[in-house]
């Protein structure tokens, strides 16, 4: 039950860890394109470290950036709605709205949003698929355009997912049988294939349901809870008040009754006497 559903115009990435040579040209391209310092690029490298026995050594790496979830946790977290799901499924960040509460950084299961820690008035740093570049008519973001080995490719999301599965099926034994990003956090727009297990690459293991869903279950209940509490409290106040007044009336009334009873007794006594 995701609030934002994907459609056929959505963009997506396919990232192949078997092709990445850790040249970091994508980091430079991102830095130049988005005019950010290298230490706060919107893309970085995850890697396995060197594994295996000499001479059969292995090392895998993969570029890593915002996954552009179908139901992004950061959207649910952001106090001021600076994070939005834009056209083509791009998760955008409005730096003019951001108040710097950093809730999105904690909410993101992929630990993607970064922060300009060294700035006096810092902002969040996050991939937006080079949305301005795409708007200028370019066909792909800077990282995908720059990658010399086509480890990052960019296109329609459905095509990227199909290509990911095709690579796994047509190359038995080359990749582990898992397209990372297909189901993670309720589905994303970034798909990874890798010869090494994703936990070895340092990828977080995200559940198949976005916590944004659980969050909505609770936050959407707010008006109901508010109404119920306000009505409940009013009814308790009025009930007790009513009860207190009734007791008061009863106390006064019963004095009357006692008087009446006394009167009747005198009357009965008078009649008997007569």
């Amino acid at each position, binding site marked *: 039950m995701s609030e934002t559903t994907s459609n056929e115009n959505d963009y997506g990435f396919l990232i192949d860890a078997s092709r990445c040579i850790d040249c970091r040209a994508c980091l430079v391209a991102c830095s130049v394109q988005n005019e950010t310092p290298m230490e706060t690029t919107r893309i970085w490298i995850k890697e396995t470290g060197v594994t295996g026995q000499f001479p059969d050594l292995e090392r895998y790496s993969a570029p890593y950036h915002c996954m552009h979830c179908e139901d992004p946790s950061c959207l649910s977290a952001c106090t001021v709605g600076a994070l939005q799901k834009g056209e083509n499924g791009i998760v955008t960040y409005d730096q003019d709205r951001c108040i710097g509460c950093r809730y999105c950084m904690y909410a993101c299961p992929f630990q993607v949003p970064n922060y300009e820690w060294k700035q006096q008035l810092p902002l969040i740093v996050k991939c937006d698929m080079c949305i301005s570049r795409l708007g200028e008519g370019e066909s792909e973001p800077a990282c995908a355009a720059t990658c010399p080995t086509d480890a990052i490719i960019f296109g329609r999301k459905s095509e990227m997912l199909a290509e990911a599965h095709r690579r796994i099926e047509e190359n038995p034994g080359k990749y582990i049988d898992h397209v990372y990003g297909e189901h993670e956090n309720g589905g994303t727009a970034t798909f990874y294939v890798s010869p090494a297990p994703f936990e070895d690459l340092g990828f977080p293991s995200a559940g198949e349901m976005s916590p944004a869903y659980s969050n909505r279950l609770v936050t959407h209940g707010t008006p109901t809870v508010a109404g119920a*509490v306000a009505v409940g409290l009013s009814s308790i106040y009025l009930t007790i008040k009513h009860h207190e007044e009734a007791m008061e009336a009863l106390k006064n009334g019963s004095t009357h009754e006692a008087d009446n009873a006394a009167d009747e007794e005198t009357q009965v006594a008078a009649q008997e006497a007569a």
Partner: protein
Amino acid sequence: MMIKKIIDEIKSLSVGYYILAVIAAAGMSVAAYRLYAGLGATTNLSKAFPWGIWISFDLSTVAFSGGAFTLAALVYVFHLHDLHPAVRPTVLAGLIGYSSVLLILFMDLGRWDRFYHFLIYPNLNSALFEVSWCIMLYSTILVYELSPALLENSRWSGLIKVVEKWTIPMVIAGVTLSTLHQSSLGTLFVVMSPRVHPLWYSMLLPVFFLISSLAAGLAMVVGGATLSYWIFKRTLPENIVAELGWFIPWILGVYLVLKLGELEITDELHLLFTSGVYSALFITELIIGVVIPIVLFSIKRLRHSRVASLVGALFVLGGVVLNRFNTSWFTIKPVAGQTYAPSWMEVAILIGVAATAVLAYSLIAHYFPLFEETVRVKRQSKVRRELAHTGD
């Protein structure tokens, strides 16, 4: 003339005020530097731990300040008028508590220059958005609830009648807002579930936070009665303190059943014994904050003892603080082995704000009729009768 009067007045204050003022001023200087220099230069916050001790402080302080709404509900909604003498001191404590939280939240905003954006850019799905609004509105209501004390000896005392006319609707609005934000502070961690330890994560987090804030709020009133007995020489009648203490085991009992029941339902009960240091933290939290206070406040003789009720209240509050720190800091899953400990400036700002809070409370208690309905402590007096209400 006026200035001379003020200077004389300041000179007449005791040395405690001066000490607090110096600590507060030092803290505020660090705070000013933090606002100028940015978060990276002044805190140990990082990408792996974007929130730190400030958020844990906020969560604990809001829970403590729950006394104001708990008491208002008991006195005005449930008609427990005997508790009325506690209202003013508690409402002021709540207001000062929320003000400290607002100050620290301001420190925590990277773009503090845009703090007002939550007013104009709503995100109805965000727990933090809801918390911000509720805290703002509720602080206003606390000022309203406190205003009779501020107006009483002033030339505007005629306004008190107008204020009191609307007390009940305002209290109901205040309790509703408190229910919302006390629970929403728990909701904060729902969307963060991948980072929260399963012993603490639950869809019931909002309920846990709400119930524990009720207990913490009552504990503040109970403990505060003994503290003001010592500090301000004014306090609540002993039977009222005991009456408040009577509620605590019931509230904590519900809390304990829900906490353990939730673990049982989600099949996580085994984590109580298999999560190493996390198990220890969880069990410590429940023993200090729940089991011990249930036992202490269940014993009538202890409920009526000033020292014992203070000890019991401190256990409740200690448990709530540990719970909030556990949820928001101690048990947050580290990323890439990175951990967090606050910088000296983060701690200095907290101490400064705390000193400011105590100073503000003491000054208001000094100049305004806060404890009018409470009983004056006369230690020499052997006549028990003199402890009777001075107000009403």
